[in-house]
């Protein structure tokens, strides 16, 4: 029998509780400030108002920036998931020497700091006219999101039994239909979560958009950066409430997708 109160264990649990508080409290504290009656950020919030949500939704500059960022994020999600699926399939079905090159290229965007890529793209896009275009942002964000998507998709791809495809092909299916009708449905949950992660990475991405954003058309993270740097109004907590709700939704969606995949496998 263990003693009911182990002081070492108690101390350890208290330490873990403190770590969790450090991790979570800053996020929980900023959220209620969105409803504060004051026009600066204060805790505990005073009064109650939905004014700051109105300030966000009613302001054409915030709305334009949000729309622009949503468009970039959606395109990034689709393009990243498509490119990652094709490349991962080739990799798992025998890429030879190209595979080694692929893995080297894949790790680079994680290792090279975003500030380096941001500055490099700023110069390159200015020369090629891609600065502050949807295409420019989508390419930049796809590069950043690619490793995450590839590893999410590869995890499912390498778990698919290859004899299933062989069976389909010996029954007369072409390689492409075997992939489309057998393998793709099996890896679809991971393709979708890879796309979701790419969406979030792009929508929140502050560094590259900081350098690429123009004066007239800003992304949402760039507008938020300017607000935090200059005035820090309760519009930021209002956006934080919306962004956190979105992050929770995405996490729940990704969790459900994983559960679907696990059930299929068993």
């Amino acid at each position, binding site marked *: 029998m263990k003693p009911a109160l182990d002081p070492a264990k108690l101390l350890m*649990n208290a*330490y*873990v509780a403190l*770590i*969790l508080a*450090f*991790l979570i409290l*800053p*996020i929980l*504290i*900023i959220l209620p400030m969105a409803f504060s009656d004051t026009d600066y950020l204060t*805790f505990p919030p005073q009064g109650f108002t939905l004014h700051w949500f109105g300030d966000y939704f009613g302001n054409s500059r915030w709305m334009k920036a949000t729309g622009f960022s949503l468009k970039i994020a959606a395109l990034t999600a689709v393009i990243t998931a498509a*490119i990652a699926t*094709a490349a991962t*399939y080739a*990799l*798992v*079905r025998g890429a*030879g020497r*190209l*595979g080694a090159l*692929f*893995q080297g290229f894949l*790790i*680079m965007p*994680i*290792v*090279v*700091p975003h*500030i*380096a*890529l*941001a*500055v*490099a793209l*700023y*110069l*390159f896009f200015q020369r090629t006219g891609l600065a502050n275009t949807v295409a420019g942002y989508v*390419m*930049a964000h796809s*590069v950043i999101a690619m490793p*995450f998507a590839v*590893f999410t998709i590869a995890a499912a791809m*390498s778990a698919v039994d*290859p004899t299933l495809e*062989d069976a389909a*092909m010996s029954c007369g299916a072409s390689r492409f239909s075997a992939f489309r009708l057998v393998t793709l449905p099996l890896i679809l949950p991971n393709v979708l979560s890879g796309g979701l992660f790419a969406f979030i990475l792009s929508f*929140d991405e*502050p*560094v590259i958009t900081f*350098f690429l954003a123009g004066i007239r058309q800003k992304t949402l*993270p760039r507008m*938020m*950066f300017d607000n*935090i*740097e200059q005035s*820090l109004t309760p519009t930021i907590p209002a956006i934080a409430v919306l962004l*956190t709700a979105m*992050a929770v939704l995405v*996490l729940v969606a990704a969790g459900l997708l994983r559960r679907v995949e696990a059930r299929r496998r068993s």
Partner: protein
Amino acid sequence: MAGFFAWRGRHLPPPVVALLMAPFFMLIVFAFLYPILSLLSLSVTEPQPGLGNYAKIVENPLYATVLMRTLWIAVVVTVCSLLLAFPLAMAMAQARGAMALLLTACVLLPFWSSVLVRTAAWSVLLQRNGIVNGLLQWVGLTSEPVRLLYTEGAVVIAMTHVLMPFMVLPIYGALRNIPPDYGRAAAICGAGPIRRFFEVTFPLALPGVMGGAILVFLTALGYFITPALLGSPKEQMIATLISQQLREFLDWPFAAALVGVLTVFVTAITLAFSKVFRFDRMMGGQL
């Protein structure tokens, strides 16, 4: 990575493989490799060919200080993250049921929530009449508000908060892979909990610890948002210095040289630790 990307099934013909991988290589070459290399070539060709821009970084004590400060802050953030991430990862690996779900949610929510939102939260917490100052006075550590915002301390705290989850996941992945029998065997042989930790758990978790530590260290070196918003303009890090050279002084070649120093350093560390810095393991705790 051989195990992770194992060849399986009937091999595709090489032209099909090339076709399927072409979009990936086109994207990386066009929007990553070429821009970075052309920026780096700028640093050794302008204003005149040679290493003049790099000499400027080394010779001017102002810039050398920025490099040293960046290195120091990255080390401190990595150590702080480890001290916080390891116990949390252990708790996650041991927890069951609702507790496991709660811990996972607590780690993943900040992971996927906006970096700007978290930075704004710290800017509110650390302001002159903010909660942290109130707490310090209530405890009696100071009698009047102290300056917390726009200091190195603020940068370290907020960066640890943002980067720590990146360390939790690989450590958690490594801990989950330790068969519980090992600990039991050590206990039967008479090892106490402390000895079990240092002779069984920690050595087996070391690959996860190293991978996570390198990931946090490399990310901290080039971090921009937190020093830009919470740091003092007088105590720059390399990323804010690059931004300033570019946006205020329009000194492209010098900014390019700073990017060069950062990129070469980061690449060298990655190559040196390529055995432990394995991204597939890092995503092992992807949950």
